[in-house]
């Protein structure tokens, strides 16, 4: 990554213009040209430096629901349980964490009423209890990672 790549990553984590030629506007602000901005961003996306480029939707504001869940998975069963949990389309993210509660996943559903049912099915299929951590409050600040 060179200085322009870093500038693009740092400056474009929000506020991409809703203009007819948005890349040209970004280029003007950064003192470069439209083709360069497009080429650089496409490369950063292709190389995986960016996981996405575009609108970031909020499931809850769209009327859906999201919750964080945790499980204590016996180490010997970890891969098996991962396969069961990941097979649920409602599981949007799943992380292994270093703790007695070693599996943490996020459920995303269209209707908040679906959450207990999905948790119940995961408990039945894995034979393990699931702790539900719905968010009660969000203390939000937009994430800015410096490249």
């Amino acid at each position, binding site marked *: 990554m060179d200085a322009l790549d870093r500038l693009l990553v740092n400056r474009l984590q*929000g506020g991409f213009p809703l203009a007819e030629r948005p890349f040209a506007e970004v280029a003007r602000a950064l003192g470069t040209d439209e083709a360069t901005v497009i080429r650089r961003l496409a490369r950063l996306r292709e190389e995986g430096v960016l996981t996405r480029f575009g609108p970031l939707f909020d499931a809850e504001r769209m009327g859906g629901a999201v919750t964080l869940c945790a499980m204590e998975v016996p180490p010997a069963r970890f891969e098996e349980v991962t396969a069961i949990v990941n097979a649920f389309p409602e599981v949007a993210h799943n992380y*292994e*964490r270093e703790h007695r509660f070693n599996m943490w996943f996020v459920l995303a559903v269209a209707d908040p009423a679906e959450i207990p049912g999905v948790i119940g099915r995961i408990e039945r299929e894995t034979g393990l209890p699931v702790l539900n951590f719905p968010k009660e409050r969000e203390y939000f600040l937009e994430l800015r990672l410096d490249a």
Partner: protein
Amino acid sequence: MILDAIDRALIAATQEGLPFRPRPYAAIAERIGIPETEVRRRLGRMLECGIIRRIGAVPNHYRLGYRANGMSVWDVADEETDRLGREIGALPFVSHCYRRPRHPPDWPYNLFAMVHGRDRAEVESKVAEIARLLGEAARGYEILYSLRILKKTGLRTRFAGEKTSCSA
């Protein structure tokens, strides 16, 4: 606002990202069969409502060198949680900060703050800043480092219901 069929088509057409073309909104417009100005108007309305949080680049933490990801969890006195949560959420190195239910006796923690760092030492020094800020209001904490991403998918359109929590 109510999301209509066109909004949902627009969400489906953009959730994987915008095309890297000089007129990205025109390319989306062509795909779903509405005018380009309509694409921008509808995206602008969703942005205003918070249905779209932001439009831009979503970087991969690991690729930017943020290899340590620690979920710090805190047991904070209930009556202090909102005030302190807002202060912690405003720290530049905290990406997400939430109040969540405790599950005693297994889980006494009610405040979750995600901290990214280049290594664990950096995460720990940032967590120490949080500890200073919380002072005696924090009765205990732990850091849960991520070891592996087991699954990561974007949102899918079927999560877009018709009714939204947005009144605009």
